[in-house]
């Protein structure tokens, strides 16, 4: 019986981590349904991007208020994880504050956890106010209705509760230490929770132990639950921001990829010795589908992008189309991609891993042509994203499908392309008049 808490703890840990591993596997499988990405090999630059943008949060500080608040929560998240390590060891072996022998260093650690916890609480409150009282416009766009808004608030509530539990646990512990209770060795300094502790000063030892143990258990169980909430939430970015910034673009934003399949075809057409009527070779690959109409046509980096999107709306905020009331919102492009990916994932789940056509696709059922044709390809969204997501590349792939597979460009664009084909300019001018300007008077 003595080991019952240890066993329960071990089970909770295994279940928590087990489910998490299952979710990660699903995530990997879903991303792998995309095409392999054609990545420029530049590991040093990529690593540097990851360190700067994800670890260093370089793009977050473009907006100073949100940037600094976010930095606090981020540092809090990383540092407080050291505390979680101690909790796990204590839980497994029935120890109490196993790191306490570190002495003065331990005091500093605990003190900094406490200060960070308080700062996190402040930041979380500010974030909540921005979403719910100030109602910043980027949190109130149509794509944020329903679950995305709830998700945003839920994360804040969970973080708040976790921090309060952490401080409560310390407060009761501190009180018990002062009473000289068994097991509760004198360790740590408690700059924040000592104030909570003074409220507890009249309580009996058994009540305090009950409070301390409850807070301890709820805190660690809460963390395990939160870990498993990530997969269903925009909060996944706390993990995926790292690989995503690593795989982010290292070429100029204006450089759109050239399709190899098209290059082959064009070269063949330009080659005067090629026989246009030749039968295709026996082992010729099936003709490639140009562009994308569903998530499987996108590449893996684009799908990773979709899972990483934290729905902050910085992209949409900077989007000229969205600013002028068009339907296009780059954030929605990413959210739709993720939603569709999840939907396809469910189909795979129920059919032993094979995809069964459900009569739906990303194009039209999620993202409409009206949205796609509003894009000016200005890259403002790409520039704004704090985690190196590229909504424009998805827009372009969907456009490519519309034009090359469905000939469904707006008619004015068809005229433009017809002109290029016939006269080598997007307007109906004669190629032979190209140099006329040189002879005209000024």
């Amino acid at each position: 019986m003595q080991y019952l808490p240890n066993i329960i703890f071990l089970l909770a840990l295994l279940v928590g981590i087990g489910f998490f591993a299952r979710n990660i596997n699903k995530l990997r499988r879903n991303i792998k349904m995309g095409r392999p990405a054609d990545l420029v090999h530049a590991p040093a630059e990529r690593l540097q991007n990851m360190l700067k943008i994800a670890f260093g949060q370089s793009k977050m500080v473009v907006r100073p208020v949100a940037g600094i608040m976010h930095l606090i929560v981020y540092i809090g998240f990383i540092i407080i994880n050291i505390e979680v390590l101690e909790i796990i060891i204590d839980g497994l072996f029935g120890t109490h504050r196993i790191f306490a022998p570190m002495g003065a260093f331990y005091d500093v650690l605990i003190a900094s956890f406490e200060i960070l916890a308080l700062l996190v609480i402040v930041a979380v409150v500010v974030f909540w106010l921005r979403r719910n009282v100030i109602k910043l416009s980027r949190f109130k766009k149509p794509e944020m209705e329903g679950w995305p808004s709830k998700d945003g608030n839920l994360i804040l509530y969970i973080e708040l509760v976790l921090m309060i539990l952490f401080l409560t646990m310390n407060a009761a512990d501190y009180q018990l230490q002062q009473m000289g209770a068994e097991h509760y060795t004198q360790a740590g300094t408690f700059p924040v929770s000592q104030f909570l502790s003074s409220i507890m000063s009249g309580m009996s030892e058994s009540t305090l132990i009950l409070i301390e143990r409850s807070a301890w258990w709820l805190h660690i169980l809460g963390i395990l639950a939160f870990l498993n909430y990530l997969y269903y939430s925009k909060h996944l970015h706390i993990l995926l921001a790292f690989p995503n910034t690593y795989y982010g673009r290292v070429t100029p934003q204006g450089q759109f990829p050239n399709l190899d399949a098209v290059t082959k075809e064009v070269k063949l057409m330009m080659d005067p010795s090629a026989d246009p009527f030749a039968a295709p070779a026996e082992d010729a690959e099936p003709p490639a589908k140009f562009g994308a109409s569903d998530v499987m046509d996108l590449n893996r980096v684009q799908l990773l992008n979709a899972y990483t999107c934290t729905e902050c709306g910085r992209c949409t905020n900077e989007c000229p189309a969205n600013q002028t009331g068009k339907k296009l919102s780059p954030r929605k492009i990413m959210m739709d991609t993720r939603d569709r990916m999840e939907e396809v994932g469910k189909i795979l789940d129920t059919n032993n891993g094979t995809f069964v056509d459900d009569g739906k696709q990303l194009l039209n059922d999620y993202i409409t042509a009206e949205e796609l044709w509003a894009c000016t390809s200005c890259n403002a969204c790409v520039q704004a994203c704090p985690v190196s997501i590229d909504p424009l590349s998805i827009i372009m792939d969907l456009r490519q499908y519309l034009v090359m597979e469905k000939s469904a460009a707006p008619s004015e664009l068809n005229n433009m392309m017809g002109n290029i084909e016939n006269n080598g300019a997007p307007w109906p001018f004669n190629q032979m008049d190209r140099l006329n300007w040189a002879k005209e008077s000024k």
Partner: protein
Amino acid sequence: MSKELRVPTMAEAVAAGKKPEVLFWVGCAGSFDDRAKKITKAFVQILNQAEIDFAVLGTEESCTGDPAKRAGNEFLFQMQAVTNIEVLNGYGVKKIVTACPHCFNTLKNEYPGLGGDYEVVHHTQFLNDLLKEGRIALQGGKFKGKRITYHDPCYLGRANQVYEAPRELIEKLDIALVEMKNCKQRGMCCGAGGGQMFKEPEKGNKDVNIERTEQALETRPDIIAAACPFCNTMMTDGVKNKEKEGDVAVLDVAELIAQAADL
């Protein structure tokens, strides 16, 4: 002031046994659009003045394919690209200068993968170098005291990180360069890119160029400087829409330099 423009073509130059230092890629807007042709001519005046050994392709030039690519027609883009690359490589072109950021971006970033490797510079970079090397001189004071705001073209700025060359040029004019709230990395699009130039905008509550013009007008400028023929059109239309064409001029950086150099 109106001297004849000297615009040699590559074909002429090669026939005369010469190998021009740099090819001036004029672009479709610069060749055909009435407003953009003025920019082309202003730039050529400067080239002539500085006695730059350049040539154009003339009737051998064709659309880079950029608008087709941004509209989603990769096939048409590559047809254009491969055709142009054949011509350019045929003449052994090494360096290209262009006044259109869209041509600049495509030639610089998307042609190499198809066999077209050139040193590509935007005309603001080219002019900035000429000025630094002392190959052109400005009559200071022509614009003295004027307020100029500069609109970053997306395909020059964000797409290729060219923010300073045009600004350095403008600052040489002895004027006040006033930045818009959204500039450089956060510069707002004029609304022409991605094929929008050639179509009606999608449904919304405002046109992008009007929004951007309002941002420019907030700086109370005498001149809105642009560095792209499409931005120029968009901003000019915006200024007209706001009935400010009497007070605010929209000029290309090359036109500013040509005027300041008193050409």
